[in-house]
């Protein structure tokens, strides 16, 4: 894996963790200042909210689903679009700089602005998906190109020398060998997106992050913790699932690593 990818994955995880820790710290600070009486009636985390309140399971599930949708759909779309972009870059190398710069510019547009602009033209859900998709492009495109560039010249030479055509070489040699790097890109994009979904609260979405925002508004730490914890959990689950996929797709890398 390239250094840049490793660093970006770190950043993604740090974002998620920082959100969770920040929320927790805030909740602790709030309750500290209160007297004992209030503390007893107003604990950091009110388990009843999660376990007893009747509406919670349904609400939690709905928000999880929304969050999941707003993560998976953009990542899938982003992967497809990145595939096209990467194909362009690989075919016409002169485009490499332009494509990466463009994807980089998209990456730096403030999400609030992007949500705002898009939602005046299309539905909220569509604009959230569109915005989140643009953020995945840079990471995934870069990793597809890096993955295919990283295929050993010896393997390519053998593929050519044995008489594989361009397409055969791409499908039978380059893509399989680039799979670990490509999947790492998709994983980083996924974890990043889980964190970014929250901002779509400004257009009445927000998934699990809605809990966090509600918690801040109502000064209710239980909601903040519930929201951040489930976001972290979601990120971890998706990351593990993608690692599972990678193991399934690349048995050769595992056995090689085991030596």
């Amino acid at each position, binding site marked *: 894996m390239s250094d840049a990818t490793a660093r970006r994955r770190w950043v993604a995880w740090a974002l998620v963790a920082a959100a969770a820790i920040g929320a927790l710290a805030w909740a602790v600070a709030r309750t500290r200042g209160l007297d004992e009486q209030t503390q007893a009636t107003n604990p950091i985390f009110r388990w009843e909210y999660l376990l007893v309140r009747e509406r919670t399971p349904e609400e939690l599930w709905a928000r999880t689903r929304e969050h999941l949708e707003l993560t998976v759909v953009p990542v899938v779309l982003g992967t497809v679009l990145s595939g096209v972009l990467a194909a362009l870059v690989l075919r016409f190398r002169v485009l490499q700089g332009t494509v990466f710069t463009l994807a980089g510019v998209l990456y730096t547009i403030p999400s609030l602005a992007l949500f705002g602009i898009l939602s005046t033209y299309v539905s909220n859900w569509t604009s959230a998906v569109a915005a989140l998709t643009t953020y995945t492009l840079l990471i995934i495109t870069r990793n597809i190109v890096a993955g295919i560039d990283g295929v*050993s*010249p*010896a*393997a390519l*030479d*053998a*593929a*050519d*020398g*044995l*008489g*594989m*055509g361009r397409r*055969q070489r791409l499908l039978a*040699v380059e893509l*399989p*060998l680039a799979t670990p790097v490509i999947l790492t890109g998709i994983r980083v994009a996924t974890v990043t997106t889980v964190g970014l979904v929250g901002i779509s609260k400004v257009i009445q979405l927000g998934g699990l992050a809605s809990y966090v925002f509600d918690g801040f508004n109502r000064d209710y730490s239980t909601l903040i913790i519930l929201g951040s914890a489930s976001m972290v959990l979601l990120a971890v689950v998706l990351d593990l699932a993608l690692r599972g996929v990678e193991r399934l797709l*690349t*048995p*050769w*890398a595992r*056995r*090689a690593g085991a*030596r």
Partner: protein
Amino acid sequence: MAGVTKTFPGSEGPAVAPLDLTIPAGELTVLIGPSGCGKTTTLRMINRLVEPTAGTITIDGTDIRERSLTELRRGIGYVIQQIGLFPHRTIAQNIATVPKLLGWDKRTTAARVDELAELVGIEREMLRRYPSELSGGQQQRVGVARALAADPPILLMDEPFGAVDPIVRSRLQHELLDLQSRMRKTIVLVTHDIDEAVALGDRVAVLNVGGVLEQVAAPDDLLAEPANEFVAAFLGAERSIKRLALSGVMSLHLDPGPVVDRRASDAEARQALERGGLDWLAVLDGDRFLGWVAAADLDGRPIADLQPEVLRARVEPTATLREALEVILTSHTSTALVVDADGTYHGAVTLEAIREGLAR
């Protein structure tokens, strides 16, 4: 190859100067020369991984540019310098690459993979492994098996034994010779190891920097008569010793040797001793070799009464001059006897005969 030239864009001189070379079908031709002299480039022009800047290459009279790239390459086995197995494919899948491209059915392919594994000495249980789980020598065998998979009439091998230690290398070389004696393919093999070139090649082409062809000849002729200073320097100082490995003892004028029949008398034995000029005699029974007796043991009794001893200075008719010399030097005598495994006596090899053999 006629007037074949390659100049890489951005470099001053050509990597391969106009090159005329005929590679006889069914023979193993070795390309040899110092690093960077254009051996790989020359080889890769044959399967069009590199397009010549000028000149034409024909195979069986047909210009290689008349066939489609993939069709041409599938008909030419290629063992690349860096082995280049596909890390994500099992050994069996690696070997089956070209058959799969050619659309062979599963059963035929599987049978062929088994056959090749056997041929190059890869155990069947390894077929399910991935390349990273094999040693360098095993990987090189797989590389050779993969190149042979669709039974191409032509085989290009770029330093096929570069990545292994000398012991494994010499074993793989022997296996290649053995394979070649059965397959009779047209092989072009690149190496920068003169011993390998001499041991494997039917013909050896020596290239100089810039892809200049200095000499093409059979190994023995090359060693006996290098065309110029460069070739001589490249062959190294031990040309005669290298040549010793190239001819067998039966190619010499074998001496009758210091022999005496077991029915001979003491007087006849003493005459034979004088003729031989040595301090021992070989005892024969007809054309069968029995052993040797020392001159000091001749005491007037007939030869039949003496007990012949086991001889160490003895080589088989298949031995090379080098082996004969080795036997002579280690057994403290100047003559080695050529005797079959079943005891048939052929004659004697002397130091003088070896020297004359080389002077030929």
